Structures are given as structure tokens and as C-alpha cells.
């Protein structure tokens, strides 16, 4: 379905700030796969997602959707097959337009937009049915401006907008990271349900190891622009957050220097469960202020 072959991308090439973001990444995602992507900051997770979506054009390598070579297509031309949800809840919908107008825009994803009316009675009926599946009551306020919704509502709406027109590939870029733990949890639930119900081929970047393990059927871990290792469905079912942390710690010995600072580790260890027991507070690195961090703290720092 989606194949990424030896994709490379260097930012600020030839300057002192030169940074290799993707260093020969290859990945094949089959139809119906739900791949979660983890890695420390700067590992290239978001760059990978952005090259697939077309926001960033890679320096070399090849990206295919099915049989089509889409490597150099700009974002708006890839939208026919690829749909995405941004990290920022404000980015996925148009605030001055109404819920139904946003849905109308999303419905014509990747198709030509002519002079027929955006919101018709028939379409409104369809939007109502779709919005009902969110169970957020948004179907009662089709005419409300999206800017009046909360972050969680907007992100759930973005998710629906990205998926209800049946994309071939869904990209999720830390789409729960900007929400507070409770709302993040609910948006994660909705994500899981939508992806399963519609059997969407999905690539999800996350900072949250627990979420990365719980969702999807495959997991890849990136580091310094490469895919470090991959877990298939069976391995993934058995892996724990502690195992992943151990992998992160291994990086330090390989690199001969700390690959991750405390803050990154804590961020990575942040749990999806919003019901974190406050008594199991975070040991060390209180500077992250991770109120939602469960008791997984880095050892041997």
C-alpha cells in the first residue's frame, strides 16, 4: 500500500546547522496495517510523516502509494490518497467556518471543487450520521463555528474529517500530544475505533510508549534518521514499556554518549492512562512537570 524506499533528507545542507533528518529510511506498510512510530526528539519521526504527506520533498529515495510514485508530488496533490491529522488541534479545521462547512471541505478531499453548493441537504444528512459516530453531540450544532469548540472536540472533528472520506493512508502526527491526559485518552479511543471500523492503513507518530504499544499491529522505533528496530504484531503484543525503555538505554552505549536526556526519556515514558496515581510520582527530572507520567522513570541516570 505505502512503500518508502531509502528516503533521505538533510536540512540546512552545507551550513554549520546541517542536520540529517532522514538517513536512508525504508518501510513497507501493507493494506490495513496500523504502524506506530516512536523515537526521541529529532529522531526523524515527523520528517518521515511529512515526506509521506508531501509537506517535505525528500532529497533522494522513493515513496509509492500502491503502484504510483508520489515522491515529488506536493502535499495538495497527494491528498487524494493521503489524509492527515496534525498535532495542533487548531490546525485540522477552519475556525471561522461552521462544522458542516468544514465537513463539506473534507468530503471533497483530493477532488475538484466546482460551483455546486458546499452544504446541501443530502450532504448535511450524511454529516449528521458521521458526526453521530463521535458521540460528542456535534451533530446538533452543524451550524456552529468550529472556533467555538474545545481542543478535544476540534481534534475529534479533525480525525473524523480526515477519515470519513476513506483515504488510502491515514497519517497521525502526535495528534493527542497537545491535549490534556483525559482528553488525549478519549481522542485515542476514538482513533482506535475509527481505524478499526474503517480498516484504515495508518502511520501514527507518538511520544507515548504505552500508546504505541497498545495501538496498532506494528511498531517501529526511529533514531537519528534511521529505523532502529521494528516489532511485528506478535512481538508487539508481548513487549512492555520497560522493554522499549531498555532499547532506548541501549542507544547510549552504542553511541558512547547519552542518546537521550532525562526530559526526553520522561516525555517518552509519559503514559496514556490519564488516571495516573499521584502517589507514584515521577522520580528525577521533575523539570518536565509531567503530571500524567506514570511510575516509569529512567534508571541509572
Amino acid at each position, binding site marked *: 500500500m505505502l512503500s518508502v524506499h531509502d528516503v533521505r533528507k538533510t536540512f540546512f545542507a552545507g551550513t554549520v546547522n546541517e542536520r540529517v533528518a532522514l538517513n536512508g529510511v525504508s518501510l513497507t506498510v501493507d493494506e490495513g496495517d496500523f504502524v506506530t512510530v516512536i523515537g526521541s526528539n529529532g529522531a526523524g519521526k515527523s520528517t518521515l510523516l511529512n515526506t509521506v*504527506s508531501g509537506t517535505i520533498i525528500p532529497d533522494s529515495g522513493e515513496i509509492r502509494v500502491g503502484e504510483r510514485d508520489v515522491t515529488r508530488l*506536493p*502535499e*495538495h*496533490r497527494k*491528498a*487524494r490518497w493521503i*489524509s*492527515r491529522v*496534525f498535532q495542533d488541534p*487548531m*490546525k*485540522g*479545521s*477552519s*475556525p*471561522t*467556518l461552521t462544522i458542516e*462547512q468544514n465537513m*463539506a*471541505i*473534507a468530503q*471533497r*478531499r*483530493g*477532488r475538484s*471543487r*466546482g*460551483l*455546486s*453548493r*458546499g*452544504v446541501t441537504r443530502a450532504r448535511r444528512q450524511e454529516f449528521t450520521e458521521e458526526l453521530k459516530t463521535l*458521540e*460528542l*453531540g*456535534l*451533530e*446538533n*450544532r452543524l451550524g*456552529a*463555528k468550529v472556533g*467555538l*469548540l*474545545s*481542543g*478535544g*472536540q476540534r481534534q*475529534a472533528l479533525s480525525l473524523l*474529517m*480526515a477519515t470519513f472520506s476513506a483515504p488510502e493512508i491515514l497519517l497521525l502526527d502526535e495528534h493527542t500530544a497537545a491535549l490534556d491526559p*483525559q*482528553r488525549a485518552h*478519549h*481522542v485515542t*479511543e*476514538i482513533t482506535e475505533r475509527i481505524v478499526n471500523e474503517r480498516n484504515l492503513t495508518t502511520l501514527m507518530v507518538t511520544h507515548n510508549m504505552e500508546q504505541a504499544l497498545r495501538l496498532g499491529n506494528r511498531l517501529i522505533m526511529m533514531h537519528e534518521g534511521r529505523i532502529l528496530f521494528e516489532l511485528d504484531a506478535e512481538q508487539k503484543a508481548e513487549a512492555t514499556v520497560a522493554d522499549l525503555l531498555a532499547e532506548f538505554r541501549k542507544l547510549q552505549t552504542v553511541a558512547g554518549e547519552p542518546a537521550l536526556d532525562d526530559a526526553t526519556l520522561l516525555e517518552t515514558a509519559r503514559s496514556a492512562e490519564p488516571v495516573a496515581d499521584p502517589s507514584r510520582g515521577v522520580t528525577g527530572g521533575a523539570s518536565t512537570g509531567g503530571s500524567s507520567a506514570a511510575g516509569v522513570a529512567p534508571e541509572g541516570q
Partner: protein
Amino acid sequence: MIAGIELGLIYAVMALGVYLTFRVLDFPDLTVDQSFTSGAASAAMVILHGGSPWIATVVGFVVGGLAGLITALLHTKARINGLLAGILTMTALYSVNLRVMGGKANLALLREDTVFTPLREAGLQGTVTGVLLLLAGVVLVKLVLDWFLYTDAGLAMQATGDNPDMIRSFGVNTDGQKILGLCLSNALVGLSGALIAQYQGFADIGMGIGMIVVGLASVILGQGIFGSRTVVVATLAVILGSVLYRLVITVALQAGLNPSDMKLISAVLVVLALVLPQLSVFKRWKRRRTLRAAQEVQADVSSSTEHPVTAAIAVPSARRRA
């Protein structure tokens, strides 16, 4: 007074163009200053060469659109900053307009047939009926614009100004939308210029100077007073703003100010319209309004469902953002 309203209605077509770029596309387009003159100059030349005034008006519309196209291409293809692209086009057009006018700074149309001649001959110009006829014409333009902004293409244009990242991810070429919007906007400005030239009986090389400020004054004044909740309300507010602006000018002239002071008054009016809403009294009122709207939405949303997710996701952030 009636003359002020008539002028206000014709200038409203220009203000609708400014609304399209300034508000819908969120693009500060300074081309307006000269595309207005371009529309007037080209229409005047068509009339002076014996063309039908209606054709002349259409030519003004098209020429204005071409001026917008140049700015749009400079911005989207040559990657020049939008403000600068407008200034460059505007500067270049001054020379072009002089060429169009055959090197003369002023073209008189007093003896020619214009689209307003039938009105004048029927003795309707300056009467309530005349105003109503003009109003009907402007409202027609408004309705077409409203209709367009509610189509699939129009929604994409609104989203381009509102959230370009989002609309790109849904497969819309934002550059294309900007090109279309700038063409349409300046076409309306050119149309307005063509009509003004015919209404006042001459085209002048300096008639467009400061036009962007007049347009902004109409948009900001109108929407400040009459609101901009939906496109239908917003465009109506622009028309009323334009008429209101002309009435303020008329009153200022009657109070003894010189016509040459009008640019100063326009600028001061825009400054006032921009500054007044920041005063605490207005701010508090506006905040209350936003808060109430957000609460209404949340109330409707949560009362309708008992699912636990709703309650959790919905509640307090609307209050925070308001």
C-alpha cells in the same frame, strides 16, 4: 445626501473586492489603488472610442482582474511578499494607466453616453428611485459573491485565508485560490472604477489614490457596526459601511472641510475603527458575546448526549479560549 448614498453604493462594489482579499483571503492587497484607476481608464477609453458603455463596464471588470492576476503571480510564483507584490503592481500600473489614457491625466466623459445616461434622462438620478436601482445592482453583486463563497470552490477559498495548512491537506492548491481571489477582487475594484468614471463623468489618473484605505474603512466600519457572523451578514455590512463612509465624508464637507482633506479623514476613520474596539468597554462586551456563543454551543452539545466521553471532552476549554 442622496449623491453621497449613490456614490457609497457604487464604491461598495470596490469595498466588496477589498473584503474578498483583506478578510476572506487574509491578504493585504495594495493593487486596489491602481486597479481602480485601470478599470476607470479602460472603460473611459472604450466609451471615447464609441463603444457601448455596457461593454466599457465589462472591460473595466476584466482589466481590473488582470491587474489582480499580476499581483497574484508575483506573490505565488515569484514568491514576493504579498504587500510588496501589491506595491510593485500598483506602481507599474500608474505608468500603464497613463498610457491607456493616451498620456492625458484626465479624460472627460461628460458628452458621452454612459450606463447612467438613461437614469439621468428619466430624471431618476439623485432620487430615491435612482438609489433603489443602484442598491438593487449592488445587492446583485453581493448575492453572487455570497453564492460563490458558499460553493465548494468558495469554501476552499475561505479556508485558504483561515487555515492554509488544513486546506492543503485536503487537496487544495492554496496558490491557485489566491490567484483566483485576487483576480476576482480586483475585477470588482475595476468594475467599481469603471462605474465611478461614468457616474462622475471623467476618469482621472489620481482617482484611485488612497482607494485601499477607503475600502478598508468601509469593511472595518461596516463590520464593526453590523457584524460579520456569516458571509451574508459580512457582505451586507461592507455595503452599509461604504454608504456610511460616504455620508461621513459628505457631512465633513458640509462642515467646511476641503475635498483635499478627505484622505486625512479616511485614514483617521480607519485608525479609529481599528483602535476603538480595543478600548476596554468594547473588549468586555465582545468577550461576553464570544463566551456566550461558546457556552451555547457546549450546552447544546452536551445536553444531547449522555455518553461519558462528551462530558470529559467538552467542558471548560471554550471558557479558556474566550
